[in-house]
C-alpha cells in the first residue's frame, strides 16, 4: 500500500503534476505516493517529472483508461 493516494482522474495537463507535487509534500522521505489519472499525457509527464525532481517512478500501469503511477519520494 502506498502512503498516500492521489486521485487525479478527469484532470488535464498540468493538474496531475501540480497535484502530485503538492501530495508529495505530505509523504515522508522514502514513502510512496500512488497517483490515478486518466490523462494519457501523464505517462510521459510523470517520467519527466521524476527524472527532473530525483523521485523514483517505481511502477506505472494502465487499466481500462486509468493510469496508475507509484512514486517513491527520494527527491
Amino acid at each position: 500500500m502506498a502512503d498516500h493516494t492521489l486521485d487525479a482522474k478527469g484532470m488535464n495537463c498540468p493538474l496531475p503534476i501540480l497535484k502530485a507535487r503538492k501530495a508529495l509534500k505530505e509523504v515522508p522521505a522514502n514513502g510512496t505516493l500512488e497517483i490515478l489519472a486518466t490523462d494519457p499525457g501523464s505517462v510521459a509527464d510523470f517520467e519527466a517529472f521524476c527524472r527532473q525532481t530525483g523521485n523514483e517512478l517505481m511502477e506505472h500501469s494502465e487499466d481500462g483508461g486509468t493510469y496508475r503511477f507509484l512514486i517513491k519520494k527520494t527527491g
Partner: protein
Amino acid sequence: MSAEEKSMSIIVTKGSLDWAYPPFILATTAAAMGLPVTMFFTFYGLPLLLKDLNLQLTAAGNPAMKMPMMGAHMGLPNILTAIPGIDAACSKMMKNLMNKKGVAPIEDLRELAVEAEVRLIACQMTMDLFEYSLDDMIEGPELGGAATYIEVATQSDINLFI
C-alpha cells in the same frame, strides 16, 4: 539529476483566454519540478494579474481556432467574426469545453503559481500606460521594468517570450 540550479523566466505579453494558458501552465509546472520561476507581465499580459478576470478570445484572424462540434471541427469565417456578441459566445463555448475536458481555469492556475512562490513582476510602464495600480491586482506582484527583467533573464537557464 537535481533541478535546484535550473531556473526559468517568462515574459507574458498576451491576455486573451487562449494565450493566457501557455505561460501559466509552464510556470506552474516548472515550479512543481523545482525550478525558481519569474513571470514578467507586460502590455496585454498585464491584465492577467487583475483581481477579476473575464478572459475572452476572438475568432477574428484566428483561422486555426476550430472547435469540436457535432463530430466535426468547426471554424468561424472572418466575415462572421464581426457579429456583435460572437466573441463572448466563442469564449463561453471554449470555457465550457475546457471545463468538460478537465482543463483548469486560469484563475486556478494563477492561484497555484502564487502558492508555488512564482515571482510575479508587473511592468511599471504598462501600469502607467493603461492606468492600473497595484490595488487592481491580486496579492503578490511586485513592480519592475526592463532592467529588472534583464537581471532575472541573465540568471535564468530558460527564458521564454509568450
